[in-house]
């Protein structure tokens, strides 16, 4: 009988075994929940997801990726900007009218909130700048790429 086998255990060890079993069950439940949430809990879609499965034009979605270098231009009206968001696999042209956050620059991350038009252009009504994990002093930005890489390598 199980209780007979357990009776050989000290109460302290019995509690430890019970707690370990409870923790294993808890972690398994959490992993299942996280696995089920893996798509819903994402804050934005990346361009390759948007291109593969375009959302309907009346649905508000978020598009996140990198602003392609050299793609940013201002329309003749002076307040509308157009740029391309890419994730290395797909590209989505984006249009936005309004004030951009100060960290919004070419080659940096961006999250655009808006709708995907039927013609394949994403019309954003809000832009959020996404900062990357790199923190670099201002003095280093005027260095050549090679110098900067060397400095970064030294800090790693």
């Amino acid at each position: 009988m199980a209780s007979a086998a357990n009776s050989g255990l000290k109460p302290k060890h019995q509690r430890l075994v019970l707690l370990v079993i409870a923790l294993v069950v808890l972690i398994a439940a959490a992993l299942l929940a996280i696995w089920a949430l893996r798509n819903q809990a994402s804050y934005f879609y990346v361009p390759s997801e948007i291109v593969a499965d375009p959302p309907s034009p009346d649905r508000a979605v978020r598009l996140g990726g990198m602003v392609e270098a050299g793609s940013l231009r201002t329309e003749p009206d002076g307040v509308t900007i157009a740029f391309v968001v890419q994730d290395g696999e797909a590209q989505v042209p984006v249009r936005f009218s309004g004030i951009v956050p100060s960290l919004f620059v070419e080659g940096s991350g961006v999250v655009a909130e808006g709708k995907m038009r039927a013609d394949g252009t994403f019309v954003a009504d809000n832009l959020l700048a996404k900062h990357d994990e790199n923190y670099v002093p201002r003095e280093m930005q005027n260095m050549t790429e090679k110098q900067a890489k060397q400095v970064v390598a030294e800090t790693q």
Partner: protein
Amino acid sequence: MHGFANPARFLRIARWLTPACLVAGLVVTLAALAYGLFAAPADRLMGDTVRILFIHVPAAWLGMAGWTTIAGAGVAELVWRHPLAGIAARAAAVPGAAFTAICLATGSIWGRPTWGTWWVWDGRLTSMLVLLFLYFGYIALADATRGEGGGSGRVAAIFGIVGAINVPIINRSVVWWNSLHQPPSITMGKSAIDAAFLWPLLGATVGFSLLFAGVVLARMRAILADIQAEARLRRKAMARAED
């Protein structure tokens, strides 16, 4: 660990360790923050707003470390019935909640000029807010189910252990899900933070941790003193009843 099962022995060590932690923490924190706020360079993109890093990151670390303390103490309470475990857990809850609130507030203030928003419901921000609510729940539950010895009781210990599942979720949220918050800058043995920012950040983290330890020790002493005072009052009341 069971050497500290005797509160008198713990109190003897805590008597000098508490001010030592608080003074050292204050000195290290002030030095690191002074360097970070005045001497560290401005960031390439963010400019001077990068300086909020030196408060935001240590506060986030201690918010999570505080809950890890509660969960660890919960295990010690449930398995070994350690008399100080519940007291340590109760003592760590309020400073942990305070650091979590500081992390959320500084993050929000930092997000406005850099991201362009005070708040978004992405994985990192949401899970950190959940941690703050868990702290509130724990504080209320531990106070309501307080045991004879002044500890947190078994119900609160179980709540602390179950709530700990949120800590790795906070840590991994930026890796598992797309989020506005950037991925971790400091990973196993590597840092994407330049040395000019990294050193004051490490200093502030050590300083904040010492302050946290000092506050937890001071609160544990206060809880133990409360228990002693209560026991003394009870004895007096009983002696009077016998007269």
